[in-house]
């Protein structure tokens, strides 16, 4: 066994308990006095950008991720108040410009021309429109990094959780209600207002004391609803197209948000 391998194994054996301990400390947020690292704690503890007792006003644009059948681009505004350095309450309002993807359109056309019996409509077809939510933001991490070795950037990392309601629209890709001469003129459309939950993780990159760029990964989840026992011919004739599924599951709408927040 060469020296390199021996050195590696010694390093591994010596360091594992320390690594586990430090990681556990990070997870459970031990007080500052519990750790005597090589870094000077004051470096980051003295925050250049403090948000305590400050209001926030923000605007952002969100783009849907994992767009299978529905695409979403959302315009959002938010107002919030920072009760402490780490805890804040946000109220958000948004309007999503949403619709079917090209894949959904192609499938709808293909299925319409296929005479085979299809008894169950597709899931995850609800498009979010106007929506509002309220939630709590927890930002325990404050840090800074150096861009290209010279420019310091201060940031805060946070998680967000809350709930609200959204106006939604759904257009079936299976059930045609108005047949046309060269295809289906109109598929079954439904509207509803539904409760939703939302969670997010994000970063605020401070540009100055009064504002920050915000980058966020957000998930909206709401109860799905679609029809089973579908009779396409009956739907074309104006009859009942089917019955609601008893276990439709949940729809998750993931999006990446990019925005700017003013602090005052």
């Amino acid at each position, binding site marked *: 066994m060469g020296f390199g391998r021996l050195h590696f194994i010694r390093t591994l054996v010596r360091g594992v308990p320390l690594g586990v301990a430090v990681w556990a400390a990070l997870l459970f947020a031990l007080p500052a006095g519990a750790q005597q690292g090589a870094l000077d704690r004051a470096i*980051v503890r003295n925050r250049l950008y403090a948000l305590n007792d400050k209001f926030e006003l923000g605007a952002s644009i969100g783009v849907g991720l994992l767009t299978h059948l529905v695409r979403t681009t959302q315009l959002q505004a938010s107002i919030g108040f920072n009760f402490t350095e780490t805890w804040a309450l946000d109220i958000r309002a948004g309007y999503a410009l949403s619709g079917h993807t090209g894949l959904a359109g192609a499938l709808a056309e293909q299925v319409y021309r296929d005479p085979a019996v299809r008894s169950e409509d597709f899931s995850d077809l609800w498009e979010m429109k106007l929506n509002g939510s309220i939630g709590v933001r927890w930002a325990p991490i404050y840090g800074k990094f*150096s861009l290209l070795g010279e420019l*310091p950037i201060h940031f805060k990392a946070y998680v967000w959780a809350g709930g609200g309601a959204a106006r939604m629209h759904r257009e079936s890709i299976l059930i045609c209600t108005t047949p046309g001469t060269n295809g289906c003129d109109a598929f079954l459309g439904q509207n509803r207002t539904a409760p939703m939950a939302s969670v997010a993780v994000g970063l605020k990159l401070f540009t100055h004391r009064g504002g920050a*760029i915000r980058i966020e990964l957000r998930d909206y989840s709401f109860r799905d609803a679609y029809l089973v026992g579908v009779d396409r011919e009956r739907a074309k004739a104006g009859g009942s197209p089917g019955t609601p599924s008893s276990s439709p599951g949940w729809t998750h709408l993931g999006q990446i948000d990019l925005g700017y927040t003013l602090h005052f």
Partner: protein
Amino acid sequence: MRRLMPALIVFWTLMATAALAQSEPGGAPLEDHSQPNVAVHAVEKKELSEARRHELALYPVAVQVNGKFTRHTGSALSYVYHLQERFGLQITPIFNWHSAPSGFNRELETKLGASADPANSLLLNWGIHAGVEATPIYGKFTFHNGTLGRFSLVLSGGAGLGHTRHQLKSEDPATGGATYGSIGNKFIGSLGGGLKLEIARRYAIRLEVRDVIYTARVDKVNGCTLEDLNGLQDDPTNLVNSGSCKASSFSGPFAETDIAIARTLVETPSSAVLNNLGFYAGFSVLF
């Protein structure tokens, strides 16, 4: 990755904007009593230099996050030799211990009788790629004004080889598990980015997103061409290997079904460039 490029450009533009807006010529002063919050320069020298050191990273979980037609979950190992403080050479083998069509693909099949092109639903069994790793950004953070941590932004890129397969018979409670046919080895490329969070002098947690890009062309299954498969379909009991065609791979109780599905897959050869975007979570040791 093409979809992500505008987002990456916007991200770097925003980073630069934030940096320029915050910039203080020459960095923050060492002592400025009028602004106690900038008492020390933003980023100090690293405690342990990485130059000319080795790093071994294990990612127990690497899960696909953009699975429209496929779903992959695996584990990966990465070895990095740091040529300089911020630049190294890396080699990464990955093994996907779970690779199957996605729930969306199955829903397409069961509800609409449709499915993705064979090339779009190609599964990556394993891969190995080598390339470079750079850590252009180094920073530190505090958790709840207590624990201090340091992190680096890690960017990586490389090229290599991967083995692909395609599902033949679907999983069915009546007939048992799914069966798969080998589509062969393909060239792969890899681009990645993420965070390396130092938890001790030599140890770090790595959270990365890596895009494994591979070209997919489905014109053979288990090495068998359409002509081979036509012959096997005529006489499914005569599973004799010939040339590149490994006919014996179709053995089993569903050989006939598998051959028929394989024939359908290659009947109209399809091709695509696939992006397997995965979230890799692991830890590394520097030695």
